């Protein structure tokens, strides 16, 4: 008589397959989903790292953030983050597209130059940041020296309210523009030359070809870059932390920097949590709306 296995082989196989994904699932529960729930809990307490105990305080922190002394910092961070995001989006999308058109030639010289333009992406932000601190130094920086050559006054790039954000954008733009170029170029290559040949027969000018063929055909790429850059630039932290520390006069105090400083400088976990939740919801709204817009306005080639 045939011995019947205790567990059916098929079930056994399914169990083994499931075991493959278990470590990932456990991890995500502990380090991603649980923290989000915990965050909501903390936002209703007076948790800070200075006191030993904490208690529930109801909506106090929420009121503080949306209708209290925290509101002006929230609005400031929103404004600063929005300015930064617009700046970085312009650099990545417009700058990236412009570079893609310039570097759209395939020989050895251009491939080396493309690699050079892309390299900053792999230069650690902290290294890049200290280099920019040095280049933009008020007294000994090379930029101000070049300014003096053409008779312009020295600018306190990092230390003055008007230019601190420009400095941050110079730094992050330097790292991002080659990335934008690379993404656009790899998409441009895959546009079928049939379109351009047909357009040439019809006597289309270069500008017409760009606006009527290249740009529409690249719209999925533009969408991808837009969404990913939008989301990543809303999360900007490191460049601001090293370059300006949120200053001067909070002119570069972006969202994540503010959350960080509530938590790790003021030790106010409660306030940081409320701000973090607000930020998370903002990110979700942004993501949802970009996808909604994209469904209408993006052309997909077959």
């Amino acid at each position, binding site marked *: 008589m045939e011995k019947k296995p205790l567990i059916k082989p098929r079930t056994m196989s399914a169990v083994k*397959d499931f075991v493959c*994904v278990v470590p*990932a699932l456990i991890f995500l529960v502990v380090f991603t989903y649980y923290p989000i729930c915990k965050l909501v809990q903390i936002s209703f307490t007076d948790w800070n790292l200075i006191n030993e105990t904490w208690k529930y305080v109801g909506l106090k922190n929420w009121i503080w953030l949306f209708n209290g002394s925290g509101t002006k910092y929230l609005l400031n961070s929103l404004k600063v983050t929005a300015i930064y995001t617009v700046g970085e989006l312009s650099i990545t999308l417009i700058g990236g597209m412009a570079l893609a058109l310039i570097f759209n030639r395939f020989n050895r010289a*251009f491939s080396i130059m493309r690699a050079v333009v892309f390299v900053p992406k792999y230069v650690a932000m902290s*290294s*890049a940041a200290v280099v920019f601190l040095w280049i933009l130094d008020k007294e000994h920086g090379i930029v101000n020296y070049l300014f003096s050559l053409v008779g312009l006054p020295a600018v306190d790039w990092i230390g003055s309210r008007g230019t601190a954000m420009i400095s941050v954008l110079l730094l992050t733009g330097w790292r991002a523009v080659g990335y934008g170029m690379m993404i656009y170029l790899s998409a441009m290559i895959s546009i079928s030359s049939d379109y351009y040949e047909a357009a040439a027969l019809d006597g289309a000018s270069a500008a017409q070809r760009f606006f009527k063929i290249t740009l529409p055909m690249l719209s999925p790429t533009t969408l*991808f870059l837009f969404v990913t850059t939008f989301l990543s630039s809303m999360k900007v932290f490191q460049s601001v932390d090293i370059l300006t520390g949120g200053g001067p006069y909070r002119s570069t105090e972006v969202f994540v920097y503010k959350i960080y400083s509530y938590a790790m400088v003021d030790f106010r976990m409660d306030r940081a949590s409320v701000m973090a939740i607000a930020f998370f919801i903002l990110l979700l709204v942004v993501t949802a709306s970009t996808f909604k817009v994209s469904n209408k306005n993006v052309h997909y080639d077959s």
Partner: protein
Amino acid sequence: MAKAKTAREARLERDRNARRKKKIVMIVQYVLAVTVTVIILFPLYWMISSSFKSQEEILLPIPTLWPKEFHPENYISVFRRGNFAKYYYNTIVMTVGILVSQIVTGIFGAYGFSKGAFKGQNACFIFVLGALMIPSQVTFIPIYIMCANWGLSDTFLGLILPSLVSPYYIFMLRQTFKAIDDSYVDAAKVDGLGRVGIITKILAPMCRSTLFTVTLVTFTNGWNSYFWPKIIAKNEKRRVLTIGLAMLKNTFAGQGTMNNHEIMAGAVVAILPVVILFFIFQKYMLTGYSKAAMK
């Protein structure tokens, strides 16, 4: 007869014009490309050239493009006074730890989600994708409290723990594994290969290039990570390069002098491994990000 000739001449002239126009476009393209390349390269050039200058030289009113005399001792000073040897060690251990863990959990997870079959597979996968939407810049507060309670401040485990699994890595590999025909896996099963065998002998070799690319990106992200190390490892003991570099100014500030030559040396030292990797594996690293764009 004469009419035909002029038509041919006209065509020739049109061709000549077109060729001339092409040539002008090419020259303009070259000029622009070289200009952009020089501008982008300049900060890196300036970093390296400043790192070899003496303190007097970086303070000159008219900056020198190339060091008048070389001072490699700036690099020694970074290791001696700046404690960079320790930062290096900490960064390597952290990066390797993150890398190994993400590769193992990533490959097995990707296998389970692509070639495996179990109830609730889709729900579990959506669970993983959902995690991509939750940024660490939000969750770091409870994670910090947890890790601090577990006594993980200023430890390697504390540095590595929140990065053990990467949903991004799982997602990328799952897409690649899915593209491989099931018949390979079935044939291997018939031959009596287990899951580990299927992964190491069939799937991993077939997806070598994606695996490689994603691993390089993971390495770079680990090496360059800043946010979490800044939070969990505040003391000298487990400080990593990125943090140490940003603090170099304060470390040397005791003298109250400009020490950008040494800071630049530190910056070079900190990025060296990744930049070397970039030039060796250029092909993979250039496609690394664009692959993600292709969906």
